[in-house]
């Protein structure tokens, strides 16, 4: 099998990159002819493009900008559209991609504002985590004592949710999550702009990742102390009701997190929450 692959291996790989020089500017396609090596991933393709420093037609071009860090599908920073599908560049292997077609197409994510080339600004993803208070509230310097006991069953249930790497694949593939791009006005301070942008983000859908994190921390013995605040957030504008049940999130999640289970549990919790709010006040 290995023999077969090597004998049919191409000498070079044609790569098409959708480039953009700065936020808000026109994007344009550029083609590169990258020398083939076995076991390449998309990151090593981009490294070779940077080393080549010229496009397919021989024209010298600035290297393509991209984000990456861990190179092992843990940091979540190298998400991009590879052959039209959202995934991590580090775990996208060239040999597999060549099975999908002769060319490799790289595009920045479409649901976040482009900073440059394949780099996008994912502030909204992290703002969503703030909206649902995706943390355990244990601030303070005093001794909290031993933590509460968690049964192995609860641990097994929660662990997959804790493997979220904030890569944004679920948001990119979600048809209900649409791009919010804000531009800073000339007369606006950075603080005022960020405040305005936060307000715009808070009107949009929080996204499946945040719903799942809310469920993770609502199941945590200490995290559940602010469960009501999370439910208030999930039932406000842009909350759980914005889900359209396309279930793309769970299909594209590189960590195989049961996102639709979290969404359905959030739906059930929201039903109970709404009834409580209606009758218990």
């Amino acid at each position, binding site marked *: 099998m290995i023999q077969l692959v090597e004998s049919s291996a191409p000498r070079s790989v044609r790569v098409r990159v959708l480039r953009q020089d700065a936020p808000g500017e026109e994007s344009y396609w550029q083609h590169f002819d990258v020398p083939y090596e076995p076991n390449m991933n998309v990151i090593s393709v981009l490294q070779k493009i940077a080393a080549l420093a010229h496009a397919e037609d021989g024209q010298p071009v600035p290297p393509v900008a991209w984000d990456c860090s861990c190179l092992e599908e843990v940091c979540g920073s190298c998400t991009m559209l590879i052959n*039209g*599908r959202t995934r991590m560049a580090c775990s996208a292997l060239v040999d597999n991609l060549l099975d999908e077609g002769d060319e490799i197409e790289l595009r920045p994510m479409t649901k976040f504002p482009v900073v440059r080339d394949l780099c996008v600004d994912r502030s909204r993803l992290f703002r969503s985590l703030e909206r649902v208070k995706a943390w355990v509230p244990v601030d303070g310097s005093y001794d909290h004592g031993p933590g509460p006991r968690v049964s192995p069953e609860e641990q097994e249930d929660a662990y997959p949710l804790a493997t979220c790497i904030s890569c944004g694949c679920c948001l990119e*593939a979600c*048809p*209900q999550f*649409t791009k919010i791009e804000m531009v800073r006005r000339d007369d606006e301070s950075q603080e005022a702009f960020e405040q305005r942008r936060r307000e715009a983000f808070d*009107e949009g859908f929080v996204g499946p990742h945040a719903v799942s994190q809310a469920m993770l921390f609502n199941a945590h013995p200490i995290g559940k102390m602010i469960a009501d605040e999370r439910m208030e957030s999930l*039932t*406000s*504008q*842009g*909350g*759980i*009701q*914005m*889900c*359209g*049940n*396309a*279930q*793309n999130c*769970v*299909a*594209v999640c590189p960590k195989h997190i*049961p996102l*639709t*289970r979290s*969404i*359905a*549990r*959030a*739906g*059930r*919790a*929201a*039903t109970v929450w*709404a009834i409580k709010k209606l009758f218990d006040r």
Partner: protein
Amino acid sequence: MSDRESSPSFLARHQFLIYRLFSLSGLIPVGAFLVVHLLTNASVLAGPGSFQSRVDLIHSLGPLLVPIEWAFIFLPMLFHATVGFIIIANGMPNVGSYPYVSNVRYTLQRATGMIAFAFIVWHVLQLHWLGTPFGGGKFDPHHASSSAATALQPMIVAILYGIGILSTVFHFANGLWTLGITWGLWTSPAAMRRASWISVAVGVVLGGAGLGALAGMRAVDIAEARAIETRMDDVKKMLEGKDTIPEEK
């Protein structure tokens, strides 16, 4: 609501409630009405008399029928359609890039929702409110099968009805599945798969009833049905004491 500023914030503040009412209205009363409507119409397969007696039962509500129609059918349907169009406008279907089964269902749910809306508007205008300008006769509750059969005779009307009925049934059956997720009835992937089969069963039964009703109406012998309906009408009038001697026709 006269203040232009307050209307978007009202929708924003009550978005969760509105979307949940939207979800509920798809089942009760709109979906429930669809089930009763299709099964009632399918009774024509047991003969024009059987269908006529069910229509008579509905029309025995007399002057209450119109307010009941508006309160439990038209207004909930308009609410469901209005919110539905807002939801469609805010979504960005991407089935080309992500051709997964549930994503196809997501896209079809929106497409069939729009088809169903157009179909229902036409259907109500054609058979209920206006008649001939909308391609066919008006439904006559005293001559249920014969008037419906007349209106459904043109092949193009029958084809459009077939598309409309199947779209509406798909929208309802698939909507049951999403409703179960929305309200948190089925939460695990295995439960969602089982629930999918419930949707398929509901879809097949209702689709069969709907297409059966369509075929049954078209197969009715109009003259014979008219005779049966007239006889039933005469008996009714006699029992009500309005008309002791049946009119000669």
